[in-house]
């Protein structure tokens, strides 16, 4: 995997030197090894901090909403899942495509820092990666033991880019992404209510999910807008927990690419992606399979219809 990073740095160096791009959007090393963070590099010299390893889980596409507005072309490295968000943002005219040079990069699943902690690793001194394993501080883990939830079910492919850096075939997903949705659907209403009450009552309204979500790029969120009629800054009642997450999921329904960032960043470990996946699974079931971000032209399922669509009263008919 070192080879991948080297190739990426070479690519960035070449494009910066030739002047084709003036900035590079990638990941920067952290203090503890796993705390890699997205960063913009503006010179070849600054690339010493550039990294690409098993900890680069963050989705870079949303940063382009602001970065692509600025002067000069920017090089961005897109993992498969980032690419879907990128396409969706292109479709919604949120990124100026002409200002972006895209390079698709291989990804074999990224490490979940919380799982590292569970295994007693508080900071990383050295790490290496193969397609199926990660070795951290000399301890080898199988990918399925250590990677992020979103990576366990990932079926995303490399799409089309200006360039691609990839050496290995992508590993197969370890789980079906709708498994948990199905499990919840099979429960009784009371059980589901208890499940979500338990989960959502943990919400502290830190807005991390909203801030990281590549589909949430509104200038001003309805929950921050006093004129929207539903503004609220904190959950002062259990109703507001539900309100916030239902409306947020509804606003991204049909646009959510299932990148899983919401659950990755939630400090309370609420499985927020299960809300989005419910919409995705319903859309697939009722209106035909649809993967947001697979292309930049198709009409989303909520801005589309067929005359023979199922009636809301028959939605549960199949169950």
């Amino acid at each position, binding site marked *: 995997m070192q080879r991948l990073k080297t190739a990426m740095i070479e690519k960035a160096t070449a494009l910066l030197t030739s002047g084709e791009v003036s900035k590079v959007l990638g990941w920067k090393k952290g203090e503890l090894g796993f705390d890699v963070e997205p960063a913009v590099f503006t010179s070849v010299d600054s690339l010493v901090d550039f990294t690409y390893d098993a900890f680069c889980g963050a989705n870079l596409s949303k940063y382009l909403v602001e970065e692509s507005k600025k002067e000069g072309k920017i090089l961005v490295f897109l993992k498969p899942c980032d690419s879907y968000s990128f396409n969706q943002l292109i479709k919604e005219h949120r990124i100026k495509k002409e200002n972006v040079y895209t390079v698709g990069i291989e990804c074999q699943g990224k490490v979940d820092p919380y799982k590292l902690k569970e295994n007693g690793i508080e900071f990383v001194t050295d790490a290496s990666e193969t397609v199926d394993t990660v070795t951290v501080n000399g301890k080898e883990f199988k990918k399925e033991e250590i990677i992020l939830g979103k990576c366990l079910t990932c079926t995303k492919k490399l799409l089309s880019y200006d360039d691609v850096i990839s050496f290995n075939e992508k590993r197969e997903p370890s789980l079906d992404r709708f498994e948990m949705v199905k499990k*919840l*659907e099979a429960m009784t*209403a*009371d*059980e*589901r*209510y*208890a*499940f*979500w*009450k338990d989960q959502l009552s943990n919400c502290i309204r830190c807005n991390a999910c909203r801030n990281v979500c590549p589909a949430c790029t509104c200038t001003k969120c*309805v929950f921050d807008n006093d004129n*929207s*009629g*539903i503004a609220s800054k904190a959950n*002062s*009642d259990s*109703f*507001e927990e*539900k*309100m916030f997450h*239902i*409306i947020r*999921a*509804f606003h991204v*329904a049909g646009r959510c690419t299932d990148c899983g960032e919401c659950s990755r960043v939630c400090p309370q470990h609420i499985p927020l992606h299960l*809300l989005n996946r*419910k*919409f995705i699974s*319903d*859309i697939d079931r*009722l*209106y035909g399979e649809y993967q947001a971000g697979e292309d930049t032209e198709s009409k989303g*399922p*909520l*801005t*589309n*219809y*067929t*005359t023979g*669509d*199922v*009636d*809301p*009263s028959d*939605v*549960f008919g199949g169950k």
Partner: protein
Amino acid sequence: MQEMNNEKKPLIVAFCCNWCSYAGADLAGSSRLSYPADVKIIRVPCSCRVNPMFILKAFQRGADGVIICGCHPGDCHYTTGNYYARRRMSLLFSMLDYLGIERERTRVEWVSAAEGAKFSAVMNDFAGKIAELGENKRLEDLRCKD
């Protein structure tokens, strides 16, 4: 909890599109086809005007059931509005069900301007179901209740 307190009558908010269902409700009225006074109608231009926010807001404020009525698919005054409403409500209601909220509390019905009898029948049926379900507890906001 399931038993409806005599003091507290169920409260039902009905969003009706101006062109078909609101007219259907008018026809129910002029035909003297009664339905419970628990049902309060809000006029919207089209079923596609109904934002999920309104529905959640209604539950928050103490509604026990929310029903959306629009033109029959294919008859929308604006050609396509109810097709979008149909998808939106299918997904929203499925989500509410997923969160454990009783699926009988929400409903979509297509009522034409000529279907006064249907309007009344639908409202009677819906109000009956809501009375059986009792007070909305799962989507309530305690601050909004006395």
